[in-house]
C-alpha cells in the first residue's frame, strides 16, 4: 500500500483549517515543527508504519479524527 500518509496529513490540515488559508499554512508549519514535513509525502509514498504512528499521535493532539484505511476499505 502507498499514499496513506499523504491522505492522513491532508485530512489533518483540512479539518484544522476549515477552509482558512492562513490556518492551513499554520497547520502545515505545526506538522513540520513536530517532525512531519507534508511536502515529503505524495500519493505514492510508502506507508511507513513508524511515520503513521507519529501522525496519528499528532492528529489526536490537534483534535482531528483520522479514518483508518481499513475502515475506509
Amino acid at each position, binding site marked *: 500500500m502507498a499514499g496513506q500518509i499523504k491522505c492522513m496529513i491532508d485530512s489533518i490540515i483540512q479539518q484544522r483549517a476549515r477552509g482558512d488559508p492562513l*490556518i492551513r499554512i499554520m*497547520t502545515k508549519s*505545526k506538522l513540520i515543527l513536530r*517532525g512531519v514535513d507534508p511536502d515529503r509525502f505524495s500519493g505514492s509514498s510508502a506507508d511507513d508504519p513508524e511515520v503513521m504512528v507519529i501522525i496519528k499521535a499528532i492528529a489526536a493532539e490537534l483534535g482531528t479524527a483520522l479514518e483508518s484505511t481499513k475502515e475506509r476499505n
Partner: protein
Amino acid sequence: MPIATAYSTKPLPDAVADLKRQCGNCQPQVVVFFASPRYDPHAISQQMQAAFPDACVVGCSTAGEIAAGKMMSGSVVAMFLDADVVEDAAAAVVGNLRSGPRVREAFAEFERRFQTPASHLDIRKYVGLVLVDGLSGTEERLMEEIGNRTDVFFVGGAAADDLKFQATHVFAGGRAHANAAVLVLLRLKRDFKIVKTQSFKLTGKRLVATQVDEALRKVVQFDHRPAVDAYAAAVGVPQKQVAACFMRHPLGLMVNGEPFVRSPQRVDGQSMVFYCQIKQGMQLEVLEGTDIVADTRAAIQAGKSAMGAISGLIDFHCILRTLELCNENRCDQYGAIFSGIPAIGFSTYGEEYLGHINQTSTILLF
C-alpha cells in the same frame, strides 16, 4: 497615545515610579514589562501591579533590554497598551512546567473570559503573548500544547538572567514565578503582524538528524555519522573547531521557505547539544550568517509597508544575536532601527512562534 513606552535604570522603588511618570495620561489595559535580573523579581512584579492596579500586568526577566531606540542592560522597560488598542485581555500562569506544561486551565480561563472556545477564536482579532522560564527546557512542549488548543498566534520569548543560567522569572498579577509560563490573550481593536526575522542564508548543504535525544536537545548522529563529524564536514572545518562555527552556522528547519533556526549550544563527546529540540528524521539546512542590522531593518520596513504604519512593537530578540551585535560593536545600530517607534524588547533565551526557535528577532507589530 494608544501605545506608550518607558524605561528606567533607577533602583526599586524609584524605577516603577519613573515608569509610571513616563506613562503619563495613558490608561493602560495591558502593561508588558521586561526587567533586568538585577531587580528583585518578586518586588518588581508586586510594585508594577500596584502601580497599575486596573491593568493586566505581565513581564519577565531578561538578558538585556530594548527601548527608546537603544539596547540596554540593567534596566526595566515597559509598554502600555490602552483601550484604543486592546479591547480585552486576560493572563494566565502555567506552573510546574518541568512536570509537563499543562495549559488546559489557562485556556479554560480564556474561554470563560472571552466566551468563545479557544479553537474558534478569530485569529485575525486575537493574538497571544507567551513568556516562559528560559531554563525550564520545556518551551517546545509548551508551544505544542498551545498550538493544540488554538490557532491563535502566540508569540514571545524565554525569560533570561544575564547569561548567569541560575534563575529566570515570569511576572503576572503582581507575582513572580519560576518554572512557569505566562500566557496572555489579547483581543485587539487594530491590525497586528508578526515578523520573524533571522539573518542567515542557505549554504546548500543539508544534514538529516538520524539519531537524537529529544529530551536533552541532543543530536547524536547526522546522516548516520557522529554529529560533530558530519557538522564539521558540512561547514568545512576540523572537528576541534566546530564550536567556533556555531553562531555563524546554525541549522535551519525549513518551514514554508523560511528557516526555523536551531542553534548549536555545545559539543558533548561526538554529539551536539542545541538550544532547541531537533526531532529524529528532521532535514536541516546548514546556514550562514548575514547582516543582522540590515536584515532587521528591511524586515521592519516590510512590516511597515504591509501595515501602513507601525504604532508599536515588541521585539523578542535572541541573546545570541545580542552577543553577535556586541562583538561587532553594533548594538547602537540595532537599537536605532526602532527609533521613532514605540518599541520595547528583551534579549531572550529563545523565541516562541509556532514553536521554540533560536537566533531570531520575533516581533509583534501593532
